């Protein structure tokens, strides 16, 4: 029933979206871990087919915020959230939302590459199998499509049946991105996707994200301010659980409105 509920609303939302561009609308969001107030009164839109970067020092709540969008925080004992994250008019934080279905529409890539200890091909199609797709031909087509989108096809096309763990760290991370694309999500959440990678792999991921934003809405948490400046359209600066500043990336990096933003960007703390 939940599935139907969310689907109807998502369709509606697609019609609405042509008028208003934010895919996600965060309204007065508060997140708590037990008594700890981790994220405080966040209000921000996340615009369609653009890259939104969340920056800020460690422990500022940006990852927590990200993990709340696809309800991954549900898995953490004691975490709870108040407020609204509107996705096509539905508040994602209510119990009416089918989390499983939600995560299929809002994909996620983690800090450490975490491919399954299975073959490259199995990694790509596992999520489709979760959704009950069994048609071999279809699975194969989607796998190839995702690998091409993640710019990994040429590197792995001859060894799809080899273990995903035989890939390099950068390749593994791109495989994880490809894997997240298999379900054709609307939004892609990335939690410091290149912080565990070398500069070359990291720049490959950035290139990839710039390409992907033509089709997907991307939200990326990053510690690397240059990375945010290079790829993000919008940037949000978090500090001690608060959203200090949100705006166009170029604007924020050249003329930050807040003193704290300026201090952080210029490396005075953080």
């Amino acid at each position, binding site marked *: 029933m939940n599935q139907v509920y969310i689907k109807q609303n998502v369709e509606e939302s697609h019609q609405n979206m042509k008028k208003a561009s934010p895919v996600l609308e965060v309204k007065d969001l508060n997140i708590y871990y037990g008594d700890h107030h981790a994220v405080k009164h966040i209000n921000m839109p996340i615009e369609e087919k653009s890259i939104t970067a969340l920056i800020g020092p460690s422990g500022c709540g940006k990852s927590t915020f990200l993990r709340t969008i*696809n309800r*991954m925080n549900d*898995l953490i004992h004691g975490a709870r959230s108040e407020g609204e994250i509107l996705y096509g008019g539905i508040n994602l934080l209510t119990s009416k939302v089918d989390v*499983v*279905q*939600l*995560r*299929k529409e809002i*994909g*996620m890539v*983690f800090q*450490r590459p*975490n*491919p*399954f*200890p*299975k073959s490259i091909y199995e990694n790509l199609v*596992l*999520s489709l*199998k*979760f*959704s009950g797709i069994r048609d071999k031909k279809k699975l194969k087509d989607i796998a190839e499509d995702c690998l091409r989108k993640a710019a990994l096809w040429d590197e792995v096309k001859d060894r799809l049946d080899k*273990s995903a*763990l035989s890939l390099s760290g950068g390749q593994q991370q791109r495989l*994880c991105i490809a*894997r*997240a694309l298999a*379900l054709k999500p609307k939004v892609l959440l990335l939690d410091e996707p290149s912080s565990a990678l070398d500069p070359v792999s990291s720049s490959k991921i950035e290139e990839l994200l710039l390409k992907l934003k033509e089709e997907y809405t991307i939200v990326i948490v990053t510690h690397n301010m240059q990375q945010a400046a290079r790829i993000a359209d919008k940037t949000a600066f978090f500090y001690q659980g608060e959203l200090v500043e949100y705006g166009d990336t170029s604007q924020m990096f050249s003329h930050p409105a807040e003193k704290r933003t300026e201090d952080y960007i210029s490396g005075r703390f953080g």
Partner: protein
Amino acid sequence: MENKSVVVQMPSSPNNEGRSLIQNNKKWTSIFNRNSEWRGKIWIYGSAIFVILSVIAITLFLTVQGLRSFVVDHINVIDFITGTEWYPDRAENPSYGALPFIFGSLMVTILAAMLAAPFAIGSALFMTELAPKWGQKVLQPVIEILVGIPSVVYGFIGLSVIVPFMRDHVGGSGFSLLSGALVVGVMILPTITSISADAVRAVSNDLRSASYALGATKWQTIYRVVLPAAKSTLITAIVLGMARAFGEALAVQMVIGNARNLPNAISDPSATLTTIITLSMGHSTAGSVLNDVLWSLGLILLIISYGFILLIRFISRRGQVS
């Protein structure tokens, strides 16, 4: 480099005697020093050597004793392993066919593993994935208690509960392969459960997150991600349980019926290598043919046990590669 600065001198040290502390001044007499490095080494190396030597000694002794029936008593090895008639105490034309017992042992082991493994892995998943708190508090102690119950108690319960139940519901005398497998299955349950729980706990949370983020349900995550990732250790757990089942004598002996012929069905009475050894040991004299063939049965037990250990090694090595 200035040599002086390299040498560490501790002027306040009383036993310095003008020598540098960094110079090696170990003497064998330092063994009497409480903090001596040698004491520790002798103890640790000594234990390791002792264990290795005892395993070698047991193997050699059992081999020598076990081969007597073939070398001294001229029993044909092939006949011994494939023969189905076991009449070692018949005055004329005694026959020594051990196949029913080898078969019985293997069947009890395999059946017990088949009965225990699903429950064991299920409870391991319960206590790690579904209810970690409750599982730790309740299921863990229950499993420890299961380990602590002596095998004679298992046998006794089997004898007074399972055997009558089998007699009423399956038929026959109730003493059967199946009864033996049931009793042993319960006995190996804790072994498989605790190793499986460790295996499941060892699966990285990154994989679970990855699975949930792909829209997997809890069961899909367990079935498609956690269990495959823990597979090789889970198989090791089952094989270890089988090794234990294979060696169990007392409890099995009380419920299996101790028939000396090959069973036609799992509801037939049977015997295992261990039960026949414990049963016949008492009325055999050292050096007699009966005694020798019992040693040979023991040797077969040892060889198959070694087989289990090799299997575990093989599985865990393969698990590391992938």
